[in-house]
């Protein structure tokens, strides 16, 4: 009963403040009136004492401080805007990177009790994490003692889905029947695979991923029971996996089928699963209770040893390795992410120091105010609360802006990751603002706020307060901060310089890479790859016939200028072969050259230049003499001083009959953009042939408008042909792995460089502004003694230029060191590329001078009389 009354009263004081105050006023006045001899009314003090008993002073004062802090910020919008911007930048960078760290490292894996899950590898002389072979996996499953269950997944990535529009390459994987049970994952719809469903005789079933269910079947429950044809086999859909399920080693497959012994992979007629020496199976296991990873490792190693003795041909020198599944999944991203997080935290620290120096520069003018407050009776705690509130308000505003900006930064960072890598990091799907992020943001904001609150207080010590009331005080704390601030700014500028130079060099590399001469005309070229189904095309003659049909029919399409066919595309992967030159002594050396199989029109379609000899003829088939065209690099390496035309070369492993060189072309870039040119030999399609065929079409339009008509033509020839990888050549070049890597690193380093640049400019401004505010009196004296405004400008700018200069010089040294480390990432530029260094240095110095212009102007506009009077 009492408690309710007490609470009611307190709430009343809190919310009906005006009424309560009015009542108090009225009560006290009534008493005063009744007093026979009214004393000097200390009514306000009485009120204060009454208020004290109400115990809500703290809230009252905080509200007051808060209002005062907001007022102060509104009075200096420049300072407020700068500080909030700087803080927001630091916090946004942190939040964005932490989001990645959270999604990759902190968020728990979507399996039941993931600590018990391990990944089992084979080891051999080249690798500690080698995939297992299917027969080995079966033996492991049967003979192991310490695992509750062992299951497998297929390492090969794609299967052909037969749709009404023709065959489509989809991401799919095959797993053993108990796979999801081992992981502890249950489907949200339908059922899991049953035991034995992966045996050869069981009917073929498949599970859908959640996104596939949404996208292909609209999330309807009637997807269950429907049939999909994968790799020519109809399979029934029996279940749908949960939305947040992912399994990184397999990427993001849409379909999960069963792994069975006889499953012929698309590319081999001799299935890998039957061979003990063919390694394409990934293995996971769930440990029994209380079993450690070390014990499991020892057990598996002895098991592998047994198998080695049993099957000496295939299993020789092959052991086993057991690693925690979580390690395998996050192992290789963890160092990068943690390094990025450290970098972001460093940036935030610099941002906080900048804002602190700005706060100090401002608080200089408030020394008198603090001294007066102290004299009026404010305790140190009260003053501290004032500063703390101001700092917290700044931090609160900065971090709310930072959280919002962080959301944008997150999306930007995500878009920087090349598409191929995104598929291999499926945990990125869970990236987003969540409670942990907000908690992290609050944490770092609090630390920042504490820093800001402490900084001005460092100056307002009680003993100083009395001195501050006197004129012209220069406390030692001021000089210490000035030195510290100057050193920090020099360091900031040096760091910004290093990052700027790094970003500049990477950007230049990217530009050079993309504009590197590729040896042909990449514009107006459309490319795609096809796979002829093994069933219909089993013999060489059929491939050749297919190629001829393609060239003929595609060539007749409107908008097609010319067509070429080969077994691969430039700026991509290429096969190799060992050859010898006929007529020269050969002692079994491995002369490795790259090799392509191309149609007669390949070079003319590409626009490659013929240097010597001739192109292939369409009529040159196996009945005519075998011919080959080589490239300039090959001619230079193998025939340096002679004409290669007419000479003969022959493959050595396996040995084949010699082929005559009939032409030499200028180098076409086969292989990665940033690799050196290699010797390449080209064989005519009609003589060598291949089941993998890529089509290159020179079109009259630059974009990909031609693809639908190409698909129609190809499907007219045979509707079961699988088409994939449609892209224009310029797209292929821009999205090649080398280009992607360069682009991502350029943007990332560039982002950090931009932030560091902004922060160092703000830092410099802060330090210069602070020193100006300390020297107001000195400047006033100088001006009174006759110094002109220009000399005041010079005075201030000289200090700024000195700081910037030292920072830049240090930065140049640092950047040369850093970019030497980064040499591998650079393409076509030296580590000490002078134009880039000069540009970065110039940018820094100019912005430093611009930043210090504002305080310099304030110094020059000081009224000498006021400067001498104030302080």
């Amino acid at each position, binding site marked *: *009963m*009492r*408690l309710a*009354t*007490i609470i009611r*009263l*307190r709430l009343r004081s809190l919310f009906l403040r005006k009424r309560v105050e009015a*009542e108090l006023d*009225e*009560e*006290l006045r*009534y*008493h*005063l*009136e*009744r*007093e026979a001899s009214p*004393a000097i009314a*200390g009514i306000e*003090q*009485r009120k204060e*004492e*009454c208020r*004290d*008993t*109400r*115990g809500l002073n703290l809230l009252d004062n905080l509200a007051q401080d808060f209002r005062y802090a907001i007022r102060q910020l509104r009075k200096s919008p420049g300072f407020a805007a700068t500080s909030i911007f700087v803080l927001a930048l630091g916090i946004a960078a942190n939040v964005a990177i932490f989001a990645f760290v959270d999604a990759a490292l902190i968020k728990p894996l979507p399996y039941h009790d993931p600590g018990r899950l391990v990944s089992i590898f084979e080891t051999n002389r080249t690798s500690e994490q080698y995939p297992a072979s299917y027969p080995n996996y079966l033996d492991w499953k049967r003979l192991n003692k310490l695992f509750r269950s062992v299951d497998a997944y297929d390492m090969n990535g794609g299967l052909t889905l037969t749709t009404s529009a023709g065959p489509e390459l989809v991401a799919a994987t095959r797993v053993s029947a108990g796979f999801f049970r081992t992981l502890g994952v249950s489907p949200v719809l339908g059922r899991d695979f049953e035991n034995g469903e992966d045996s050869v005789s069981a009917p073929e079933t498949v599970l859908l991923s959640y996104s596939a269910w949404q996208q292909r079947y609209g999330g309807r429950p009637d997807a269950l029971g429907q049939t999909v044809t994968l790799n020519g086999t109809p399979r029934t859909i029996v279940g749908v996996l949960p939305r947040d399920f992912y399994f990184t080693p397999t990427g993001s497959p849409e379909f999960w089928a069963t792994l069975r012994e006889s499953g012929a992979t698309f590319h081999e007629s001799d299935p890998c699963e039957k061979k003990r020496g063919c390694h394409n199976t990934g293995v996971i296991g769930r440990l029994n209770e209380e079993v450690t990873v070390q014990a499991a490792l020892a057990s598996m190693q002895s098991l592998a040893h047994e198998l080695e003795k049993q099957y000496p041909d295939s299993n020789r020198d092959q052991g086993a390795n057991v690693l925690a599944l979580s390690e395998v999944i996050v192992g290789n991203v963890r160092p990068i992410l943690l390094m990025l997080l450290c970098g972001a935290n460093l940036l935030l620290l610099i941002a906080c120091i900048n804002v602190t120096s700005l706060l100090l520069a401002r608080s200089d003018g408030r020394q008198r105010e603090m001294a007066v407050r102290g004299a009026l009776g404010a305790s140190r705690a009260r003053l501290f609360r004032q500063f703390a509130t101001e700092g917290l308000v700044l931090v609160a505003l900065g971090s709310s802006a930072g959280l919002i900006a962080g959301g944008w930064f997150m999306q930007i960072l995500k878009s920087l990751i090349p598409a191929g890598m995104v598929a291999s990091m499926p945990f990125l799907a869970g990236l987003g603002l969540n409670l942990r992020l907000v908690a992290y943001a609050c944490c770092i904001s609090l630390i920042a706020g504490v820093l800001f609150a402490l900084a001005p207080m460092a100056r307002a010590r009680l003993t100083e307060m009395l001195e501050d009331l006197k004129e012209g005080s220069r406390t030692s704390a001021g000089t210490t901060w000035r030195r510290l601030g100057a050193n920090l700014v020099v360091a900031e500028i040096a760091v910004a310089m290093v990052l700027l130079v790094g970003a500049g060099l990477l950007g230049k590399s990217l530009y050079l890479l993309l504009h590197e001469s590729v040896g042909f005309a990449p514009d107006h070229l459309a490319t795609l790859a096809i796979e002829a189904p093994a069933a219909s095309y089993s013999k060489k003659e059929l491939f050749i016939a297919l190629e001829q049909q393609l060239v003929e029919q595609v060539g007749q399409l409107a908008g097609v200028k010319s067509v070429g066919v080969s077994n691969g595309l430039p700026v991509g992967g290429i096969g190799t072969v060992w050859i010898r030159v006929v007529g020269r002594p050969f002692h079994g050396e491995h002369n490795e050259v790259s090799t392509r199989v191309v149609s007669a029109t390949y070079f003319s379609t590409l626009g490659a230049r013929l240097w010597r000899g001739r192109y292939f003829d369409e009529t040159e088939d196996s009945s005519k003499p075998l011919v080959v065209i080589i490239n300039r690099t090959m001619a230079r390496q193998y025939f340096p001083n002679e004409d290669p035309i007419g000479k003969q070369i022959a493959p050595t492993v396996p040995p084949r009959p010699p082929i005559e060189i009939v032409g030499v072309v200028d180098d076409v870039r086969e292989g990665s953009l940033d690799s050196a040119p290699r010797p390449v030999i080209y064989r005519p399609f009609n003589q060598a042939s291949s089941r993998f065929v890529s089509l290159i079409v020179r079109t009259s339009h630059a974009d990909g408008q031609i693809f639908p008509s190409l698909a129609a033509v190809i499907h007219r020839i045979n509707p079961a042909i699988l088409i994939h990888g449609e892209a224009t050549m310029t797209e292929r070049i821009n999205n090649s792995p080398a280009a992607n890597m360069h682009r991502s690193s350029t943007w990332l380093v560039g982002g950090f460089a931009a932030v560091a640049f902004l922060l160092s400019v703000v830092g410099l401004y802060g330090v210069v502004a602070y020193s100006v505010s300390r020297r107001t009196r000195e400047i006033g004296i100088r001006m009174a003694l006759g110094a002109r405004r220009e000399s005041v400008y010079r005075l201030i700018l000289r200090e700024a230029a000195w700081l910037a200069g030292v920072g830049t010089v240090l930065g140049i040294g640092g950047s040369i060191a850093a970019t030497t480390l980064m040499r591998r990432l650079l393409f076509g530029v030296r580590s000490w590329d002078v134009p880039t260094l000069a540009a970065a240095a110039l940018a820094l110095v100019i912005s430093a001078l611009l930043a210090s212009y504002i305080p310099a102007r304030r110094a020059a506009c000081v009224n000498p009389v006021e400067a001498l009077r104030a302080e």
Partner: protein
Amino acid sequence: MSKPTDLVQGTLDLLILKTIALEPMHGWAIAQRIHQMSGEVLQVGQSALYPSLHKLEQNGWISSEWAVSENNRRAKYYTLTRAGRKALEQEAAQWERLSAAISLIVRTA
């Protein structure tokens, strides 16, 4: 107005509670009654009275309401609550024990 000594400050609560145990009163009347009943010895000033009154109210020992006073002006009247009555007994007993102990020491020569 004399500022009461610390001892009386602590027992002021007791005096207030006792005074309004008889009938509800407003602040000024309480001060007058205490002055009267103590034989004009104790003079309670505004600076001690109202903070005490507010503290007692916050503790829930007295309750207040506005009413018209004897000179036709609005004033805040304080009444003893049930908890206050119990507190009064305890405080009174406490005071008896304390004052007896002090008297014992002071009187022995």
